[in-house]
């Protein structure tokens, strides 16, 4: 199995390890629920170095990427990031990713670990103009710092003012070393940052964050946090057969962009509709819904659960999945088949938890609420 540079740190902390797409990663250090609460109420740190880092640079970088993703990257200024989807000719999602414009002609593309090689090859195969595509994952790590105290903690450790960054801003952090960037992005729904840096710098950063009281958080809580935030997981909630319009990510599609792979199929779907819709649902007391559970309405199967967990913040089981469009409105009563018994559920608007807004209210902050994710 592959190991990140921080692997020895996880073992030192006594983490319960698990295999994730060929990587030996920490599932939890103390408990999933405890780590989840730490992120929502204070600050947690994650080793997400299994994800891929692909460097795309040159005058042809924007044009190359722009033909392959649904967003309009000409609208992404320097020092800004963009959540977008890589699509194929049928408008199916090959991956979801965040592109960080770290320079005028330099883009750092962060991809899901399972798709690392495939995405790098794909980008390389579709180069246009003068552009270099390089998978720079080896020798590099990613540390996420998430929670209401994240900016204070990172400011202390990095000796900077990352607290001044807006959502989806990206900035170099030379105080932590060369080739280090921090961005105000994350996969938890709470405020926070992701730091992209060489391995040795990552080990130093990790230790300094822990010394100052950050809770190490594993993949178990990463999943419960992202689910509360309504964030999709590639490979679980969507795959190459999924259209952005089916999975509720139509907002990422820049309809005025002249061309990109799959655009004609997507525009037809935008007009004509799709056959299934992605929803969130909440349950009362009861078992946890899981990937593959049937969703039933009026004694008829109408869909399938793709992600389910126990929400530590709401103290109830929650899940996401696909249903027939007629059953997709918030408030629609459903039943989820769990181990052959139906349990009541109700459709809710995503996200389940607006963690950043709630944290702001709790802190009495006057920071305005901005942006989507």
């Amino acid at each position, binding site marked *: 199995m592959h190991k990140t540079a921080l692997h020895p740190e996880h073992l030192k902390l006594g983490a319960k390890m698990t295999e994730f797409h060929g990587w030996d990663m920490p*599932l939890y250090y103390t*408990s*999933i629920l405890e780590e989840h609460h730490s992120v929502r109420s204070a600050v947690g740190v994650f080793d997400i170095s299994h994800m891929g880092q692909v460097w795309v640079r040159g005058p042809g970088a924007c044009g190359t990427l722009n033909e392959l993703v649904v967003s309009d990257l000409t609208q992404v200024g320097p020092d800004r990031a963009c959540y977008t989807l890589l699509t194929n000719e049928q408008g199916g999602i090959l991956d979801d990713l965040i592109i960080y414009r770290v320079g005028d002609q330099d883009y750092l593309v962060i991809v899901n670990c399972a798709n690392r090689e495939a995405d790098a090859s794909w980008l390389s195969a579709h180069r246009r103009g003068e552009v270099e595509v390089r998978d720079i994952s080896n020798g590099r790590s990613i540390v996420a710092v998430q929670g209401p105290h994240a900016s204070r903690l990172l400011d202390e450790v990095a000796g900077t003012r990352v607290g001044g960054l807006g959502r989806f801003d990206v900035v170099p952090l030379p105080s932590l070393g060369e080739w280090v960037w921090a961005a105000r992005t994350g996969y938890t729904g709470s405020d926070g940052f992701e730091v992209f840096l060489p391995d040795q710098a990552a080990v130093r950063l990790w230790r300094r964050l822990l010394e100052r009281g950050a809770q190490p958080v594993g993949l*178990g809580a990463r999943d419960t946090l992202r689910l509360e935030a309504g964030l999709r997981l590639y490979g679980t909630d969507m795959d190459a057969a999924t259209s952005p319009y089916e999975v509720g990510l139509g907002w990422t599609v820049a309809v005025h962009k002249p061309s990109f792979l799959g655009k004609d199929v997507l525009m037809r779907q935008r007009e004509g509709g799709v056959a299934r819709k992605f929803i969130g649902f909440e349950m009362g*007391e009861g*078992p*946890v819904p899981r990937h593959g559970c049937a969703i039933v309405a009026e004694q008829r199967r109408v869909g399938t659960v793709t992600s389910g*967990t126990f929400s530590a913040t709401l103290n109830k089981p929650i899940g996401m999945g696909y249903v027939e469009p007629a059953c997709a409105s918030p408030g629609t009563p459903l039943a989820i088949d769990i*181990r052959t018994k139906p349990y009541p559920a109700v459709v809710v608007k995503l996200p389940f938890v607006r963690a950043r807004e709630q944290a702001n209210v709790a802190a009495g902050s006057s920071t305005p609420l901005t942006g989507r994710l």
Partner: protein
Amino acid sequence: MNIPGDLRYTKTHEWAKPLEADVLIGITAHAQEELRDVVFVELPVVGAAVKRGDQAAVVESVKAAFDIYAPVSGTVTRVNSALTKSPQLVNQDCYGQGWFFAVKPDRPDEVKTLMTAEEYAKTIQAEAH
């Protein structure tokens, strides 16, 4: 590892405590350690007949659900309804407030055929290797 000497044990990590009128049943410290955060428990119905080795309850953590097996055959006399509102009792006090259900055994001697604390301790050690 916490393995009270006055209880009996199964290979599947249930404990059994013979009382006056019935046998109290729960899961061991080893089991709840492995599970971590228990978020849901499905209990049998009072009055149901259970057979030794058959699935009688379900315990669910954030990551997965696991079957709990009846250590003895008999009739369910009571269930721990506190676990509905507070499933975390299983983690906090697995031999006490985290009990699952009780069974009036068909054969009162059957519980003595279960493993002792020493025998159970040995099986856990063997599992670790």
